[in-house]
């Protein structure tokens, strides 16, 4: 992917609920948990927007052998960690889509096609998209995912995409929005807010 620095991977599997991307070797910054990314769909007419909720590194026989060896050499380590045969996979949850210039806070009409390029969303795009909080229910309602941690990580990303003086207020308003959705489950809300509170302190 050296040719296109903005690319973080290509779609290997997808559905309207989300997509799975693969890349050969991770950069220190990408992909990361909670990151906003986008992926072309409908022949470039729209972008499906997703947040990364899982990153998978699978093993193969060789990896297991090296891991079992007394002392892997530097070369062996580098080879296993950065130039893998088996690609690194990441999974993203669809949280909305962009059609022409507008953002929509619901599942996309069509999933991206296989091998569609996946790119991180730029700061201004993140700011614009997260100016409304309607993506939050899509995250919270996903089943079998660590949704609370995911949501907190997303909100942190969305806050740091903003100028420093706006971050606290953004997290507060987002927190209130979440609180309304979680108010039926106070223990859960407490632990979620504790994570978010930590994010709030570190973001500012």
């Amino acid at each position, binding site marked *: 992917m050296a040719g296109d620095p903005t690319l973080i991977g290509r779609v290997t599997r997808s559905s309207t609920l989300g997509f799975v991307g693969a890349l050969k070797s991770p950069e220190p910054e990408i992909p990361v948990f909670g990151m906003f990314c986008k992926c072309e769909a409908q022949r470039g007419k729209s972008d499906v927007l997703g947040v990364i909720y899982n990153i998978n590194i699978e093993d193969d026989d060789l990896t297991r052998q090296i891991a079992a060896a007394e002392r892997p050499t530097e070369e062996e380590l580098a080879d296993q960690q950065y130039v893998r045969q088996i690609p690194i996979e990441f999974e993203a949850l669809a949280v909305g889509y962009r059609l022409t210039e507008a953002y929509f806070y619901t599942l996309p009409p069509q999933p991206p096609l296989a091998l569609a390029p996946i790119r991180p969303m730029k700061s201004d795009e993140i700011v614009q998209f997260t100016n409304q909080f309607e993506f939050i229910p899509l995250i919270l309602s996903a089943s079998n995912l660590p949704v609370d941690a995911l949501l907190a990580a997303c909100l942190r990303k969305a806050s740091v995409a903003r100028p420093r003086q706006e971050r606290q207020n953004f997290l507060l308003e987002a927190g209130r929005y979440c609180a309304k959705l979680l108010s039926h489950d106070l223990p859960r809300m407490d632990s979620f807010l504790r994570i978010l509170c930590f994010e*709030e302190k570190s973001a500012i």
Partner: protein
Amino acid sequence: MSEESTLDEFLGPKLTNTQMGIVVGGSLSSGLEVKINSKLSIERLAVGRYVVVEGRSGRRFFGLITDISLGSINPDMQRRPPDSSEEFVTQVYSSEVAFGSIHVSPMLMIDEDDDELRPIKTIPTHFSPVVEASAADVARVFGEEDETHFYVGTPLEMETVQVNLDLSRFVERSSGIFGKSGTGKSFITRTVLSGVIKSRLASALIFDMHNDYGWSVRDETGREFKGLRQLFTDGRVSVVTLDEDTSRARGSKIDRVLKIGYGQIQPEDVEMLSGLLGLSDVQVGALYYLRRRLGKDWISKLLQEDDSSELQGLLEDGRIIAGTLGAIQRKFEFFRRMDFLVPGEGDDALEDIFRRLTSGTSVVLEFGRFGDTLAAYVLVANYLTRRIHRRYVHMKNKAAGGKEEQPKPLVIVIEEAHKFLDPTIASHTIFGNIARELRKYNVTLLIVDQRPSAIDDEVMSQIGTRVTCLLDNEADIRAVFSGVSGVSALREVLARLDTRQQAIILGHAVPMPVVVRTRDYDENFYASIGVLEGNALRDGAIQGSETLFGD
């Protein structure tokens, strides 16, 4: 002009920037629940303030905040409060999950297409926005001060707005001024009476127990306040005293002294004192017998020191026993101590007072030192009121026959009113009758009392306008609101009034209930009544001379 702009003209521009919250529930009978905007601190609110609910149909509803509470989406929150040491967490909680709410009692509504104030017949829909009522909104409801509308105070935290009492409605039915001792009842009464006298809508007969109304009064700090006789120097107020010495010592101007002759007192007058003098039923019954047998001079005869043969004769008849007679004589010693009671026939004071009242002069009856003797107060108030009322009835009946003019409306002011109107006697006393017959004979009461719960319910239900200062006894609070629908929520407000110079006014003479800070009774007030003093007087004189000698 569009409907919208008429409305705006009526209530002033809409104040979206002070939106307080939205209606989330409630009912016509119990009032509205309003969830308040998270940006607004409920610590800044206060019961007794007005709000306007902007109904979805364009109707606007005027209401009063009657309660303030803390709500939450999840009732479990009270058992699992968030970690309050984390500012961020409490901030998140306190908007959507934990919020303030207010209870609003709707009072009036204003239709979209006219500017009539209407009584509440329905309530605004869910989620109607609620804004703070602006001064202009409130001022428009209470109207302008004019000849028959008298400025008595300002709504809470709206010093620029005048609450004007509709005096013609105020005197049309009996009214009450209630409150604990020291809350400002006498000051409000004096203020309102100034308005009534100034408007010439009615004459007042004031039974002035504590010498509060006629001439100057001092408060506990020694500050002096003018009495009605000093505010109206044109003869519209007369002071009649029962205690000339005290009145003179106070420097009070006196228009006449009232003496009541023993011969003028009827058994009915004494019967009213039975509780206070401790007369038993048998003894009360004996009074009538004694009057019949002894004639006009019955009291003098009963007070004679030496045993007269006439009394002896009564006992021999066997209609009365010596014990009863002796007890009555002992209890009648009270009359001897009351210097305003004199042997003989008395004078024409009653006729004189009646004449003054019907010609539009108000009369302050000063009790002087006798004000401390409740029996004296009850005796005189009953004595005069029964006779004056009888004359009014007579005059009114004649007027109905076209033979005479309508009598000038009369307002009779009594303090410690529960002594005249308690449930055991209200049904057969003159004051009970006056309260019940409404204004049939152009006579109404203004009762001033600190224990409204002790007043007969039926009488209370006839009270048209109620001005109530702080009351803290639950029964008294209940009594004040009895018979008025839709205001029970005001209890919370009433129990939290300041200890002085704050009152709730509700009923006949105001378009909607209002919590007021009562008007200061001071130089400005005197000036508004037309009294000029000191510099103002001199300036006035100079101005007068200028016009006299100017071009």
